[in-house]
């Protein structure tokens, strides 16, 4: 998979096959997909997934690509929303060998290519970490030396996606910090509560530095974090945002 450029239009619906499921947390699962003639993608892009019932009823949702462009399969991490219409189907009903309709890759704005350079400041809330993880995976695969600082916001330690893998990025020019908003494990020495000015200052989110800032997650998280960054002195035009809507899934 050598192409690292966004697919120019037109977008067509493709049939992907589920190769395997990979549980991430008690509510999130990664779908590892085979997509024939996948044109390649940039870290940060997403796909639209479409489900069609036998009577023709359709539902469509967007999911960020979790895999690096260099990976052999396309990976989507889906957070299961309990009363959701699409996510429980994807996490609970699909079996390896099943097919899924998707189109993409989509989105040229919220992307990062190793050639763009860093330093990176990535702020992810809940499943907003997915496209940021694609960026980190791409960074590692491309052997980029761009410094990266990551702030992960999650409800609890059990809800943090890619926990073990994040620990491996920490130490390779990547600093990962966490804030847990609802509950913290015993002896927790990390941050708690919503992202605030002090956290960003401690992360060295200096508005003077030529940072590439990416914020992703539920709309409320993104609006709040962008506000705090602006309070800290960042130019709003230099902050790239991707909002997942009220539930974030």
């Amino acid at each position, binding site marked *: 998979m050598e192409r690292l450029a966004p697919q120019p239009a037109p977008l067509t*619906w493709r*049939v992907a096959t589920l190769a395997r499921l990979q549980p991430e947390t008690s509510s999130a699962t990664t779908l590892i997909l085979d997509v024939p003639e996948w044109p390649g993608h940039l870290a940060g892009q997403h796909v639209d997934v*479409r*489900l*069609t*019932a*036998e009577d023709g*009823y*359709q*539902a469509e949702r967007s999911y960020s690509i979790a895999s690096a462009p260099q990976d052999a399969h396309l990976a989507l991490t889906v957070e299961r929303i309990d*009363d959701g*219409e699409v996510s429980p*189907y994807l996490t609970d*009903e699909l079996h390896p060998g*099943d*097919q*899924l*309709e998707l189109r993409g890759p989509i989105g040229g704005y919220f992307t990062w290519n190793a050639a763009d350079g860093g330093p990176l400041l990535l702020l992810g809330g809940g499943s907003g970490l997915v496209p940021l993880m694609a960026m980190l995976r791409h960074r590692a695969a491309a052997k980029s030396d761009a410094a990266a600082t990551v702030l992960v916001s999650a409800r609890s330690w059990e809800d943090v996606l890619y926990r073990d893998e994040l620990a491996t990025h920490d130490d390779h020019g990547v600093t990962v910090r966490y804030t847990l908003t609802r509950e913290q494990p015993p002896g927790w020495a990390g941050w708690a509560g919503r992202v605030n000015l002090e956290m960003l200052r401690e992360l060295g989110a200096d508005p003077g530095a030529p940072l590439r800032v990416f914020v992703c997650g539920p709309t409320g998280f993104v609006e709040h974090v962008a506000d705090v960054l602006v309070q800290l002195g960042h130019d709003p035009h230099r902050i790239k945002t991707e909002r997942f809507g009220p539930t974030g899934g």
Partner: protein
Amino acid sequence: MSPLISRGFGGRRRRDVDPARIPPGQYVVDDFPVLSAGPTPTVSLDQWTFSITGAVDEPASWSWEEFLALPSEEIRTDIHCVTKWSKLDTAWKGVSVDVLLEHVDTAAEFVSAFCDGGYTTNLPFADVTDGQAWVAYEFDGEPLEPVHGGPARLLVPHLYFWKSAKWVRGLELLDHDEPGFWETNGYHNRGDPWKEQRYWSD
């Protein structure tokens, strides 16, 4: 290429409903989806007014307190959104537009609803009179939530719900039709769900 059927996918629709209650192309939901053309406006009730303006001898206007003092009704009705969901037996409380027009002398044939946030929608005068339309401020026994149009929204349940303008602040009475926000961008001028009048090509 016809879409791939997703084995075992049914969607979150209700199937146990009398089909005679569902307009063509609609499906029934139990939740209340939130759809908006823009952000939820914030308005303080001591600055809120509802007005009847336009082709009238004397414009009428009510403050929030005056509005709540008007005779109101409990309305139980089905609502139908052009995005294909329908919700049955919804319960509202509001003031009938007939009450608002009681002392208004007009020969207007059309109305344009105007709202906080700038949204507009147009209706024939005959579609908002004779017990067909209300300005509603309660839903399900509670004050109407801002995301659903509170403090008050227009309620015209016999037409697609984009006509039930959220955050309504008044009705402009007109002698000519003035297509509104969606009517000028692809949607049907009248929007009768039973005739499936969704788009301007229908």
